[in-house]
């Protein structure tokens, strides 16, 4: 299954960059929690990275085509798990997202991303060449919709939306007509006020309206946005130094080890640190796009872009949010924010990407 020859095609550069980003994450988690009640969170993160490395290895070792052949099994398992969350899940921050296991809580929605990417890649690979038909798109939409609704029900609209970016990414690559893309865009714009009126909950509305004018609720929803921007701006060019940022250290930013880890990073490491981190993220994304281009088959390209869509979307949204430039959404920063399931799933996803890259020359 793992030929010796393949070993030489593992993309070491990506692995190194991933390791550096994980290390930065652990560092920031330590910095933001060392003087509080969660001071051992960085140890948890290290465990998650260890498990993630195993998952990475597994996803790398098994040929992605074999995995794709069994995608429906994975898909089915994840859907069952998501049902399980709704039935037996534990609650945190007003949402039911986790399945309690002996040593940690497990968040199936993070793994749903990989499974959906795998399933969609397989589906579009098998559909007719050229542009996917409306039927293809409808089926792809249905595949996405089931976990989407289950996750949205938790409620975790943010993670649910990342599933849509996977669908969008893969169908775009599969040759979806640009006209259709345009129509989708128009529908989204038209649907926005309708959604505002009927679909969004009050706390979601307040997040958006305070984004437009943070001072409306300077102590509530607008608070985080204001504080995030202050954190970033006060970092300056060179930063305040590790564990020396006042915004993060004195808890002006809530859950700084999670949603706002990049704000604190910007505060403590400055613009120079931000450029380095942005460069590292950009590197892994562009490198993965290159992998998609080099992929031996369409399946590989779809799979890489599917996984990458969710990753890149979350990275870009979180970093933009870190500067207070988009409404606060519960998107963590993959690889840096604290969170076991997210770390494991992200590393597993990169395992698949490198899997595709590694096997680009095989038959």
């Amino acid at each position, binding site marked *: 299954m793992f030929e010796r020859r393949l070993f030489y095609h593992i993309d070491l550069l990506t692995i190194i960059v991933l390791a550096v980003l994980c290390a930065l994450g652990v560092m920031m988690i330590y910095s933001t929690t060392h003087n509080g009640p969660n001071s051992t969170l960085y140890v948890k993160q290290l465990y998650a990275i260890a498990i993630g490395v195993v998952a990475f290895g597994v996803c790398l070792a098994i040929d992605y085509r074999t995995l794709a052949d069994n995608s429906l099994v994975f898909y089915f398992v994840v859907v069952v798990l998501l049902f399980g969350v709704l039935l037996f899940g534990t609650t945190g921050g007003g949402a039911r997202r986790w399945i309690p296991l002996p040593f940690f809580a497990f968040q199936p929605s993070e793994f749903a991303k990989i499974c959906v990417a795998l399933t969609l890649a397989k589906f579009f690979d098998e559909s007719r060449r050229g542009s996917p038909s409306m039927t293809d798109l409808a089926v792809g939409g249905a595949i996405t919709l089931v976990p989407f609704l289950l996750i949205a029900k938790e409620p975790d609209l943010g993670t649910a939306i990342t599933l849509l970016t996977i669908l969008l*990414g893969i169908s775009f690559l599969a*040759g979806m007509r640009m006209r259709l893309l345009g129509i989708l865009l128009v529908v989204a714009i038209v649907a926005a006020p309708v959604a505002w009126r009927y679909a969004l909950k009050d706390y979601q509305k307040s997040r958006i309206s305070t984004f437009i004018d943070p001072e409306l609720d300077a102590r509530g929803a607008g608070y985080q946005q204001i504080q995030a921007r*202050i954190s*970033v701006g*006060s970092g300056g*060019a060179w930063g305040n130094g590790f564990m020396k940022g006042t915004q993060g250290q004195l808890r002006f930013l809530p859950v700084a080890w999670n949603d706002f880890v990049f704000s604190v990073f910007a505060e403590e490491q400055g*613009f120079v640190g931000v*450029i380095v981190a942005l460069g590292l993220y*950009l590197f892994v994304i562009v*490198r993965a796009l290159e992998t998609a281009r080099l992929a031996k088959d369409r399946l590989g390209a779809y799979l890489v872009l599917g996984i990458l869509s969710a990753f890149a979307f979350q990275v870009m949204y979180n970093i933009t949010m870190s500067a207070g430039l988009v409404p606060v959404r519960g998107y963590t920063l993959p690889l840096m924010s604290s969170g076991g399931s997210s770390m494991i799933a992200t590393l597993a996803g990169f395992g698949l990407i490198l899997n595709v890259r590694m096997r680009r020359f095989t038959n």
Partner: protein
Amino acid sequence: MLGIPTGSPGVALPDDRRKLVTRLIVVQYLVVVVFAVLALAFWYFQVVQHEKFRELAENNHQRTLGLRAPRGVLFDRGGKILVENRDSFVISLVREHSRDIDRTIRLLARVVGLSEAEVRDTIRKHRSEPSYRPIPIVEDATLAQVSAVTAHRLDTELPEVIVERVPTRRYPADAMAAHIFGYVSEATESQLAHDGLHAGDVVGQAGFEKIYNSLLMGVDGARRVVVNSLGREIRTVEEVPPSGGRRVQLTIDYDVQRATEEGFKGMGYAGAAVVLDPNTGEILSYVSLPAYDPNAFAAGIDRATWASLNTDALKPLQDRAIQGRYSPGSTFKMAVAAAALEEGIITPDFTVTCHGGQDFYGRVFKCWRKEGHGTLDLRHAIEQSCDVYFYTLGKMVGVDAINKWATRLGLGVKSGIDLPNEVTGLVPSSQWKLAKLGEKWYPGETISVAIGQGQVSVTPVSMAVYMAALANGGKRVTPHLLRAVDEGNGWKPVPAPTDQGESGIKPETMAAIHDGLWMVVNAGGTGGNARLQGYDVSGKTGTAQVISLEGAKALKGRTDLDLRDNGWFVFFAPRDNPQIAGVVFTEHGEHGTNAALIARHLMETFFAKKEGRPLPVFKPPAPPPPKPPVRVTTPATVVGQAASRQPQAESREP
């Protein structure tokens, strides 16, 4: 590698493969653009706008807490502490730290035992201030209130509530010398605008505290602390300690001051007294009663107390010693005598025969003694306070000469005392009447002026200057309270303010007046109550009507105004080489002999202290003087007018 490759060169790609590559390249462009925009945004916030955000972050986590400087301590001339500072606790609320102000108000009101409405009211008053500035909710909080708040704060229940320890003025008990000290309170808006003060500064608003505010105030310090997002202090960044105000020594003698107030209280009178060293103008004792408790202002006066002080008919906020104008009555006769002698109109041996009254300009003016005094010279006329004698002098001298010499002795002009808002009395002249009323002076009007009635009005402090001038041979000293200042290296005496002038009265004139004044106390005069064996007290009583006899009869039983006469006693001692001089004015004291009792007590205390004897205890006269009526509504300023309404005032000197 980050560049955009265009596909493997030399290999012809199938159509759909090329399409896939193209779309991937589109995605790559998109990603690169987004990252570039992000980099730009971070550059803008972190580099371009860094300064602004750095400040915002600093405001977030740093608080500057004011450290109030203690005001300078006031000492008496012997080094006894008069006014010092104590620590008081202020419970304040920082709106900025409050997530739910209504809940905070509810809790705070309950914990400190106030009504919610009161707390809201206080906050409303400060609503225009920045929200990080603490709003004092309870000033001078009790220990119970402080411990209740601290206990709750430890529970994290009220993180926005802070308890500060601030130095607060402590004045002597029983409102002693209140009108000397005045009081302090937070600077008003107009003071903030003019005096370079900061909001919340505590400044002198009256009395010595006001006049010497810049000496006493000191410079507030500040402590910069780091707070976390809950507003809790984490550590102190830097501390600039406050530097206290200067220590200041007053000319007041604590024991003489005390004796004077004991005298007034023992007799049950309101009034004023100013006692000074006749040679220097140093004030030894200074009283105005009723007084207020300056302590009530020190920690923020409540509205009810303030309102009652302002509406009190007895006007406790008025400093009678420098702001009250009263008819001097017989105490004015020395000025008339001085005028007559200095103008060369009479000699001390000039005699007049008193039959109990005399006709002047077609009208009979009575002497206080119906049976008359017989024939007297100047010395005996002063001793007996014979009205007919002085009516005669007044007629001979004329109002303008009286005005000239009274003014030279310090009457009808400001004394220049170092206290704020001194008013001027009035010694009329023909010029004054022409300017003021546009009328010519009638010689008949001079007759009442000659016995200190009619238009004449004086402030007690000017009477003290007058007596000091008579005592020291004619020098018009400037009464003052500031004796020495400690700039940080021991007491440095403050030079006495320059004198207001020399009256130019001849020693022979002085000698004659001194003889008369000595006889008032030590021979057959009205001042026997002030006699002190061995000290040759010289003085003069005065009794001034607040209303004419006819008016009093007409109003009898129909008014709740206190119509009893005001009593004066002016004095110096000893007659030769005087060391103490002054005035005791008792409002509705009925007669100057009562005021003389108070004067005697304070002089006795002065000499006893000087000679190291035990201080005397004030003994009120055997039948206690009648208590003033419960409702007294004669405002002091009306007194002069009431008397002046009656041009034909009669002296009521027994």
